């Protein structure tokens, strides 16, 4: 009986088929955390495969190194097989379900529609603006903003938490210790799984040659995002805790975090889009390429419109820019559980559960 080459029934079965070959080979052990975790497995249950899939950062090292990549009958394309499992998990575990499927499939169009819709909404609200108020709040009252954004931020996070909890159980994550969090934070903060195991980087936009472009772009996006997030949080604390409302000058914490953060985010997402255009789509979850691209584009738009808003301070463009920026931010928040953005949560959880990793 020759090797069975009929396509596997599901994404999980296909990944298992390929992982069994990898497990007998192990040549790629040094590229990332997936292979060491694989060799420690005794049974390839769906949960274990989900865990491996989220450990994979799609660096593609194992594809270009594989002596069994297509047209070999073993047809190894592990980056794509694991991307499909990840995508399936994000859809299957997302809550509530119907919203999830809709967004994963046609993310780009929906994101654009949302931004436009929300921008219109903000413009309308602004029309009812209070007579008093300074800066932005001359356009939109602070309370109105909080009333919209607080739930728009909290509810998606609740949705993510519900999904993640179910997924954590499925992969057998177990009790979380502080060490798990610090180990995962170290790995994520440095993009360790994007460095090819030895700092040479990914095989992404240059075929079988390595490059750190994707790792750097991703780190810029990650840190830029976190700085923007920190800027908003600090500003909220200042507003309520110190009774020090916006606008803030440049030499204040919100601006010192937000402006460089916005620039990093802008550069990082711009670079990610450029890289994605050059990489081979067949080594990822090809059917959601558009949705992924749309999500990066949205993040880029959030940062770019934010920077534009800052640059336009004091001009007549502020009301329009503010409506657009806030529309983008709101769309982004609401899409967190149903877009590529969730990858951050799943990956972090996967790193936490990978207890034997360095």
């Amino acid at each position, binding site marked *: 009986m020759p*090797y069975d080459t009929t396509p596997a029934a599901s994404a999980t079965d296909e990944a298992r088929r390929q992982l069994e070959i990898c497990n*007998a080979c*192990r040549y790629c052990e*040094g*590229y990332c955390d997936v292979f060491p975790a694989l060799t420690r497995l005794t049974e390839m249950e769906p949960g274990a495969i989900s865990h491996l899939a989220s450990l994979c950062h799609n660096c593609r090292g194992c594809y270009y190194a594989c002596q069994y*990549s297509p047209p070999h*009958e*073993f047809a190894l394309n592990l980056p794509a097989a694991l991307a499909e499992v990840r995508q399936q998990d994000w859809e299957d575990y997302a809550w509530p379900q119907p919203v999830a499927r809709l967004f994963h499939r046609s993310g780009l169009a929906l994101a654009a529609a949302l931004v436009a819709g929300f921008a219109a909404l903000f413009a309308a609200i602004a029309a009812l603006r209070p007579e008093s108020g300074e800066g932005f709040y001359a356009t939109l009252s602070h309370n109105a903003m909080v009333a919209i954004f607080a739930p728009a931020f909290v509810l998606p996070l609740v949705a993510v938490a519900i999904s993640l909890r179910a997924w954590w159980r499925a992969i057998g994550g177990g009790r979380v210790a502080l060490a798990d969090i610090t180990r995962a934070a170290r790995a994520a903060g440095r993009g360790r799984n994007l460095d090819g195991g030895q700092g040479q980087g990914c095989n992404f936009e240059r075929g079988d040659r390595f490059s750190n472009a994707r790792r750097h772009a991703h780190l810029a996006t990650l840190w830029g995002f976190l700085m923007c997030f920190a800027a908003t949080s600090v500003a909220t604390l200042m507003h309520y805790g110190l009774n020090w409302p916006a606008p803030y000058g440049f030499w204040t914490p919100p601006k010192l975090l937000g402006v460089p953060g916005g620039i990093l985010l802008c550069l990082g997402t711009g670079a990610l889009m450029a890289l994605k255009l050059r990489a081979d789509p067949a080594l990822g979850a090809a059917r959601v390429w558009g949705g992924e691209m749309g999500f990066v584009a949205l993040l880029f738009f959030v940062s770019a419109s934010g920077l534009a808003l800052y640059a336009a301070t004091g001009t007549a463009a502020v009301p329009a820019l503010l409506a657009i920026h806030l529309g983008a931010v709101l769309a982004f928040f609401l899409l967190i559980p149903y877009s590529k953005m969730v990858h951050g949560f799943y990956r972090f959880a996967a790193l936490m559960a990978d207890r034997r990793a360095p």
Partner: protein
Amino acid sequence: MTDGNAPWDVAIVGGGNAALCAAIEAAEAGARVILLEAAPEHMRGGNSRHTRNFRCMHHGPLSVLTDTYAEDEYYDDLLRVTGGKTDPELARLAIRESEAALPWMERHGVRFQPSLSGTLSLGRTNAFFLGGGKALVNAYYATATDLGVTIRYNAKVAHVHVESGAFRWLELESGERITARAVVLASGGFQADIDWLARAWGPAARNFLIRGTPWNRGEVLRDMLDQGAESVGDPTQCHAVAIDGRAPKFDGGIVTRLDCVPFSVVVNRDGARFHDEGEDVWPKRYAIWGRLVAAQPDQVAFAVIDAKARGLFMPTVFPPESADTLEELAGKLGLDPAQLAATVDAYNAACRPGAFHPTELDGLATEGLEPPKTNWARPIDTPPFHGYTLRPGVTFTYLGLRVSARAQVQSGHGPLSNVWAAGEIMAGSILGQGYLAGFGMTIGTVFGRIAGQEAAAHAL
């Protein structure tokens, strides 16, 4: 291609490890180099793309290698596997030069990783390639391209034109001629030419599987021998190991190997045992079984284990046939149920109590059984039972070109003035029989580099 007829300094025949090392050295010496690879781009790299490590002499820790592996120990290891069938001068040269080869490889893009899980015993002697041999091949192609080497895929060399002791031009299968001042032959062995194997070994060879590339068909080796080049190595022999019988005819590579033999009972098509499954230790055992299976009717054998043995050996790509009774398993394997049951019963009855140690020669042997099983002999009695089909898988052939210590090809009338050879095509001088894990890449790297330097020096 317009440059096809340009007079090249150095032409390299082949696209595996030896060819690439030669191309890089020649290009670094300033030569204009063309590399001719028979395979299409996605299949480039010959058997080198299937490798995982190379064996390296070293004094003190070197890159990923631990401790020390000195020349004499290395040489003794070689003598042990070849039974002395080696050219001491070339062998010692390969061993000594391996120490400088490792940093050279790293400088040219190869990355190493610590010994893979399951192969810790090799951590001192063998440096593993990060990503395996295909990653190494990719790195060398990138380096060669950056050095300006012209690379031609789908460029099978059909004839090496030699006239009065010197090479003149190459003729491709397409009829195209490539002229160069010097040539390096690095096109591997002939194991993918099944007709040739069958002529050398006998018709049984038609049932052999070829573990590596389908492109190593020995056209260039044959052509050179026909033109009077001197040969080395036994023309009738090939290195074969027992692999999973369901592996593809070509290119199954490393994952088709089966490590279950020591924990099994191995029977032939007729359900009879034919050799001591507990003999010897890895890696020698690995190679013995290729020949043993090749000598059985239909060149096939079956390894039967019980539930106790699962997990004692590296996982396999192909799941075994499984059944709750030996009779049922026999049916699935196409064996006579009564015969298999009788063979296993006789074996079980010959097993003796004692301590079982899967990782060492434990001396747990059968008594009064012919042939005996001298280690790891535990009764096969715990269902479910599992069965694997074994077939001979050919790694490489031994016949090759005789070369000097400068890798120059020899003819009956002395060396050919501008022809060098490296890698499997000349490895028979050093590996006259048997195999030492990781030595194929050492030979290819060391002699590939020498051949590239010499060819460039001649041409420039």
